[in-house]
């Protein structure tokens, strides 16, 4: 592999790595939100939950 090819590969790897890190950060945040939803759901009494079925939260 020549030096030029190494640089080109590095450029594409950097783009891939940045997008991957960004998606990982977003997924970690969504996991935290899911935990918070569970925590809030735990505070709501069971009979209320039975009367009003919850809709799944839309993301996006």
């Amino acid at each position, binding site marked *: 592999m*020549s*030096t*030029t*090819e190494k*640089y*080109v590969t*590095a*450029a*594409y790897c*950097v*783009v891939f790595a*940045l*997008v991957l890190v*960004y*998606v990982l950060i*977003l997924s970690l*945040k*969504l996991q935290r*939100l899911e935990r*918070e*939803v569970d925590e*809030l759901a735990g*505070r709501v009494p069971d009979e209320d939950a039975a009367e009003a079925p919850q809709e799944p*939260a*839309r*993301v*996006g």
Partner: protein
Amino acid sequence: MGRTRIPLPALAVSSVVLVTTALAFVFFVAPNDQTLGFSQRIFYFHVSIAFAAYACFICGAWQALRHLWKRDPRADLASYVCVHQGLIFGTMVLITGSIWAKVAWGRWWIWSEDELVLFLVLYLFYCAYFMLRFSIDPGPQRANLSAVYALFGVVLIPVSFSAIRLAKAYFHPQVFTLHGPNFGGWILVTYCIAQVAMLVLAYTLYRLEIGGKRLDVRLRRLREALA
């Protein structure tokens, strides 16, 4: 009448397929450039990402205008997410551009080249957006000031775009001229695929981030109501 939105999983699959196709075209279909050789292959993603960054900043300005004009409560958050996306894509432009400069010019960065410095100015301007936004408490004042700032930033985009024509000592390829694209054949086809891939990827990431942010806001309100 409600707007029909493309489901997020469909967008994610489209992004993966398009980016993979673009990579296959970049490395296996597009021919070597006569002047720049193999290093020109950075161009396909570097330029596409730059246009995606510009698109994000323009969308941020549009949402900022909607916030100021129609007082749409969702526009402030949308503007913020667009600017954030633009900055992430801007970071990728700077890194890929710097690597390309090292291969083509032998240096990572050249301060005397206006096209590089003007993009950096645009990038730093939008970095300062976050400093401004997070120095003010959440509320209408923060939303208004952020919107005005995002709206002003859009002025820098045509300056940065046309700065490529200001290249002095070093050759900077010009993608578009007044007569259309500066290339044809498989290079143009590959570039178009890469451009669509980057725009779809940017939109997918935007939808993912704004979905999370809106959920966060709703959760905070719910927690306050329950407290």
